[in-house]
């Protein structure tokens, strides 16, 4: 599957693993938060990189071992569910999360500009949506008023 990562279309090197499903022999799994909470002691040493997928009602403080995670995938059950924007910003600004921050679910081109400003660097677009179109979204605005993850200074300190 292809995703957008760091403003490029790339082949996804992580594998989503459903809760009941068997873990892969190797590679980089993304597991649900529930599974991670149960199995993290074995998961973390077993794979070179582990990702955790969190529902939109979860907070960064619900996720242990943040510093050991290579990826956090934040779910957008609907494109109008904006909780993930705050989650992303807190993960980066407050918890210092430096791994891949990925938006998954109902992700559309017109969210990407805002999502990137809130710290997301990877995007699994909703199936059927052209990724090329998504790439154009990052440059739609060349001026931003607010402080965000991309620049901690509000515009009045950059003007």
């Amino acid at each position, binding site marked *: 599957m292809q995703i957008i990562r760091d403003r490029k279309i790339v082949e996804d090197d992580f594998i989503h693993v459903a809760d009941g499903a068997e873990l892969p022999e190797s590679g980089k799994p993304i597991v649900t938060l529930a599974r991670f909470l149960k199995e993290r002691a074995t998961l973390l040493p077993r794979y070179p990189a582990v990702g955790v997928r969190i529902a939109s009602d979860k907070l960064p403080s619900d996720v242990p071992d943040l510093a050991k995670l290579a990826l956090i995938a934040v779910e957008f059950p609907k494109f109008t569910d*904006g909780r993930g*924007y*705050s989650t992303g910003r807190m993960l980066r600004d407050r918890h210092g999360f430096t791994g891949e921050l990925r938006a998954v679910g109902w992700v559309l081109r017109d969210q990407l500009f805002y999502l990137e400003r809130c710290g997301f660097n990877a995007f699994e677009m909703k199936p059927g949506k052209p990724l090329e*179109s998504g790439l154009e979204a990052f440059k739609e605005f060349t*001026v931003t008023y*607010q402080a965000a993850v991309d620049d901690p200074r*509000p515009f009045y300190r950059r003007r």
Partner: protein
Amino acid sequence: MYQYDDYDRRIIIERAQQFRGQVARRLSGEITEEEFKPLRLQNGLYMQLHAYMLRVAIPYGLLSSKQVRKLAHIARTYDKGYAHLTTRQNIQYNWPRLANVPVILDELASVEMHAVQTSGNCVRNITSDHFAGIARDEIEDPRPYCEILRQWSTFHPEFAHLPRKFKIAVTAAPGEDRAAVRFHDIGLRMVENAQGERGFEVLVGGGLGRTPVIAEVVRDFLPKRHMLSYIESILRVYNLAGRRDNKHKARIKILVTALGVEEFRRRVEEDWEKSRTPALELPDAEVARVSAFFAPPPYENIAADPDRLISLGLGRDRDLGNWVKNNVFPHKVPGYSAVVISVKKPGIPPGDVSDTQLDAIADIADRFSFGHTVVTHTQNLVLPDVKTSELPRLHAELRALDLGEANVGKLTDVITCPGLDYCDLANARSIPLSLEIAERFDRIDYLNDVGDVSIKISGCINACGHHHVGNIGILGIDKRGEEFYQLMLGGSPGNDASIGKILGRALAQNEIVDAVEKVLGRYLEIRDSIDERFLDTVRRVGFDPFKEAVYGSADPLEAAGGD
């Protein structure tokens, strides 16, 4: 007023391009109608009963004459020759064709205007006191803070998909709240603390709609430099914890009520401690930069003459006298007055202004008021800086334009939503009712006798006509397929905020204006002096005398019977 620099201008141009792309993606099928809807809403484009409606943002209601002329031009060229002033100090066009919307946005951009975030689940237009900058009772001009908030809220990346819409109002006049800050998601009241330092009292969780709530104080005193970081924390707590399962329970007022204000405050303060950074503090230089745009116009040095207004009010020209008494307000600069132009007139839906009137108002603003006008949340227009000596001449000109109604704050200065004539949410028409009220009570002596009273009409429980805070509120409901109206008394949007209560059973269309007349008749009988306002009488005597007047009985069961 604030002037865009190249950055502000670039954002609006890039926005227009972005919206063109969104429309193109909808047309190509890349996005569905469901996916397009929030995008068009955040650009002010609604689908109404008969046509699209475009709502144009007027930050804190302030317009230059150049902008007013552009609004007139758009009304004439792309609409049916009129525009509608809204209760959020905005203006809306009820009949634009979708194909013309991008062109209208270009026209607006040419005068530094837009339709950004006038709808949708985001931070909406920032509103304020319509006498901001000239009011005698204000601590300082709140508009620089409104403009700073406007820029901060424009395309805020974290808060573009909130559980529900979000409205912020700012006032800097502690004595009289003309911005209804207690009925906003966030209300900021500028105050001074014991040390003489200025800051904001922060109120959260007010609102009208289905569940009217008076906002609670979340912080007594917030130093001004922390304005943005603190508001971000309020919004973050709301964004994360506000309900998303039911749009009727999604406003922040429901969250504050559910958590209790103490727990809500604790969460906000906790987030704030973790998120505030020195960079987020508002530097004095930025406040000074923005404030410079709101520097006072070149007023003439005129000796104070307090008797002048009184003598105009009592002069031989009764029309002029009534207008001076009702439509002219004090100004902080001697020799100047603020004038409210009432657009509420028999035969005209409240808030509607024609293209020719707008052009004429622009012209009048240039000659009488340094080129500025302000939209009020009561759907009128203010000329903020008129020389008191020019009032007779101004009145004569306004009268010639059919804009000389002397009814500001009086019975016929009705606030109303568009109602069933335009809106697909409405249960009942509200405009015909306001027209009937305007017709029935179109006698200046009666208006003056009844004095200050507000009537606010909503066509459904979403309360766009603010009926909960009318001294007299009227709510349209559907009763077995017929339009009925509930009559409420006792609401007030100001410092003495209160929510009106239903008087009795709902009334049919041919009963409701009679009922208003009966209520007012009873008030005239029982007020303790001509100085006791309608609202004060209702608060003093309670509902029984009014129930008796309307329903023939104060018995609550009978008065409420059948409903």
